C-alpha cells in the first residue's frame, strides 16, 4: 500500500483558517483519488473541496503525507483511529485532538490543543506545541485519557490540563499551570516549568528535571530513586526519543495539591 501525498496549494493570501477534519487515514483509506478531491473542507463559512486546496497523489492508503505550510490549517487527524499521518511542516490547531489510535508525526510546530482529549495513539511533535496540548476542551471534565504525546520543543500553558491517563513528554520548557487539575497520568518535563505546576491536581505524576517553585499546597514527603522513571526513560530511548542520562538520580517527592485530594505528586530531580 502506497502513500497518499497531499500538497497544500495555499489559500490565495487569505488569512481565514481552513478546517480540514476529513483528513484522517480512516476516511482516506476508503477513497480513490477523485473521491478524496471531493471531500468537503470549511474555509470560514464557505464549504469547499479538498481538491481546491490540496493536490492529491495516491489513493486508498492509511499512510498520509502532508506538504506545504499548514500553520493556518486546523483539525488534521482529529478523532483518527488507525494509520499514520506525516506532516512535513508546522500545523495549525487541534492536530490529533480526540485521536484514539494510529500515529501522527509533525516535523514542525503544532498549534494549540494538539492531542487534546486524545484517548490512544502517538502524537510526536518535532518542534514546539502551543497551549493546552493533551488538555481538555473548555467545559470537558477530562483531558487526554490515553496515548502518548512527545514534544521535542517546548509547550505552552496548561499542557496536560485535566489529564486522566496517558503520557506527555516535553524536552523543552512549559509555561504556567502544567498538569492543571489533572486527575491521573504522567508528564515528564526536561526543560523548565512555569508557575503553579500541578495546581489543583488530584492524582498523577509530574516529573521535572529542573528546579521549580512548588506551590505552597504541596508538601515534601521524601527523596528517593523511583524505578518507574528509569523504565520510562529506557522506553523513550528505545523509541528513538533521546532523553538525558540520569543514571541512578534521586528525586524529591512533593505531594499535593492539598487544596484538592492531595494524592498527586511532583518529582523533582536532585541529580
Amino acid at each position: 500500500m502506497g502513500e497518499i501525498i497531499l500538497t497544500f496549494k495555499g489559500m490565495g493570501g487569505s488569512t481565514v483558517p481552513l478546517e480540514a477534519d476529513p483528513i484522517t487515514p480512516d476516511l482516506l483509506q476508503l477513497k480513490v483519488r477523485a473521491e478524496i478531491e471531493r471531500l468537503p473542507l470549511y474555509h470560514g463559512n464557505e464549504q469547499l473541496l479538498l481538491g481546491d486546496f490540496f493536490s492529491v497523489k495516491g489513493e486508498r492508503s492509511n499512510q498520509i503525507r502532508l506538504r506545504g505550510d499548514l500553520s493556518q490549517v486546523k483539525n488534521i487527524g482529529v478523532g483518527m483511529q488507525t494509520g499514520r499521518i506525516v506532516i512535513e511542516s508546522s500545523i495549525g490547531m487541534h492536530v490529533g485532538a480526540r485521536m484514539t489510535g494510529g500515529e501522527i508525526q509533525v516535523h514542525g510546530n503544532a498549534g494549540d490543543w494538539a492531542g487534546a482529549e486524545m484517548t490512544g495513539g502517538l502524537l510526536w511533535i518535532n518542534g514546539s506545541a502551543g497551549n493546552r496540548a493533551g488538555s481538555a476542551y473548555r467545559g470537558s471534565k477530562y483531558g487526554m485519557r490515553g496515548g502518548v504525546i512527545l514534544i521535542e520543543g517546548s509547550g505552552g500553558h496548561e499542557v496536560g490540563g485535566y489529564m486522566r491517563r496517558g503520557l506527555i513528554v516535553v524536552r523543552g520548557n512549559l509555561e504556567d499551570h502544567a498538569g492543571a487539575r489533572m486527575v491521573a497520568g504522567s508528564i515528564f518535563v526536561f526543560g523548565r516549568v512555569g508557575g503553579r505546576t500541578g495546581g489543583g491536581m488530584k492524582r498523577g505524576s509530574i516529573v521535572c528535571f529542573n528546579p521549580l517553585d512548588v506551590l505552597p499546597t504541596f508538601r515534601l514527603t521524601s527523596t528517593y530513586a523511583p524505578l518507574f522513571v528509569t523504565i520510562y526513560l529506557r522506553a523513550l530511548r528505545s523509541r528513538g526519543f533521546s532523553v538525558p542520562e540520569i543514571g541512578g538520580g534521586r528525586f524529591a517527592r512533593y505531594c499535593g495539591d492539598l487544596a484538592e485530594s492531595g494524592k498527586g505528586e511532583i518529582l523533582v530531580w536532585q541529580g
Partner: protein
Amino acid sequence: MTVAKEMRVVKDVTCPFCGVTCDDLEVHVEDGKIRDVKNACVLGKDTFLHHLEGLATPRIDGKPASIEACIEAAADILARAKYPLIYGLDSTELHAHRKAIELADLIGANIDHTSSVCHAPSLQAVQTVGIPSCTVGEVKNRADLVIFWGANPAEAHPRHATRYSVTVKGMFTPQGRKDRTVIHIDVRRTPTSRMADTFIQIKPHSDYEVFSTLTALVNGHDLDVSEVGGVPLQEWRDLVEVMKGAKFGILYWGMGLTMTRGKYLNVVALLRLCQELNRFTKFLGAPLRGHGNVVGMAQVLTWQTGFPFAVNMSRGYPRFNPGEFSVADLLGRGEVDAALIIAADAIGNFPAKAAQHLKSIPLIAVDPKESETTKVAQVVIPAAQAAVAAEGVAYRMDHIPLPLKKVVDSPYPSDREILDRIIARVLAKRPDDGAKRAAPLPRG
C-alpha cells in the same frame, strides 16, 4: 409667542452604566433634554446628563450618508465576508443581543462580547467547577461577612455598598454596616480598603497561591511554608477562622483576578474555596461585573447557543472555544475578514495589534456616540442609546433582568431595529434565501 415648555419626571429609571444596575433613578426631562438625575451616582448621572454629547453621524467612507444607505453598505460587507466578527454588545439591551445572534447565525460569523476581555475567565471557571452564588438581595438581607478580592467597587460600582453589600440594612442585618464584617484583599490600597474593617495586601500575581492555601487550611491540612503571597501563614489561618465563623459569607471578585496571571484558574481556585467552606457555613461567591449590560449578552448567548461567549457559527451551528473564537485571539492572529462592532469601542480598548487588524478590514460601527472605532470605521450607523433613548431589558450582575426605559427621543433607530434591517438586507442579497445553512436557532 412662547411655547409652553414640556417638563416631565420619569421615575424608576434603570441605569445602564455599571453592573449594579440601579433601578431607582428619577430623571427630569425638559423639552426633550435631560436636566437632572436623582438617586444616581456620578457615573450614572453623567451617562444621562451627557447623552447628547459627541453623537455619531451616519456615514460611509467618511462621507455623510442616509441611515438607509449605511444599512445597505453594512449588509453588503457582511453578506460577502467569509469569517466575519460581531463584537461589542455591552451597552445595549436584550432584544439587540437576540438580533445580533440571529445575524451571526445568518452570516456564519464569530460572535463575542465585552465579557471576553473582562470577566470571561469567571464564566469559564463556573463552567469548570460550578458556583455557589446568590442574588444581591440575599447579600443585603443575610450576609454578615463580605470580602472584596481584586476589585474596587468603591470607585467602579459606587452604589454597590449602599444598596447591596456594606451599609444597607436588611432583614437579618438590621443594623446595616454594624452587622457586617468587611474585608478587602488586593495588591494595593484603594478607596475600597477604606470602607473595609480589614485590608490584606498580597503580592501581585499570588492570588492563586493564596486561594489554594486557604482551601488547604479549610480542609485541615498543615503546610510547610511560613508565608504565602507576602502574608504570614498565621494571618491566613485567622482569615479561615473568620470565614468558617460567618453565618453567611460572600466573596466578591473583580478583574484583579480575571485579567492577571492564571486568569480563569484564579477564579477556579476561588470557587473551590467557597465550595469547601460550605462544609462549615453558607459561603458564596459572585463576580463584580463591570460595564453596562455585559451580563445580559452572556445570558442571551447562553440561552440561544448554549455558550456564554466566543461562539463561532461558521459551520451553521454554534461552536465554543475561547482562545480560538475569542475576539482578542481572532484579531491578534489576523483571521477575521470583516467586523461589525456594536455598542462598544473596540479600537479604543484593544491592544495595538488587534486594533491594527480591525483597521485593515471592512469595519462597521453601530454606536450612539463617536469613538475611536467610529473614527476609522468604513460604515458608521448611529443608534438610539439603550436605556436613555431606547427601551429594553438589562441584566444586573446577579443575572436578574430589569426593564430599561426610554426617557427621551432620538432621531436614530435603536440597535435592535438597525440589526433587524441589516438582517433583512442580507437575506435579500442571498439567492437561496439562507437555505445554505442549517435550521435557524429557535427564537426566544
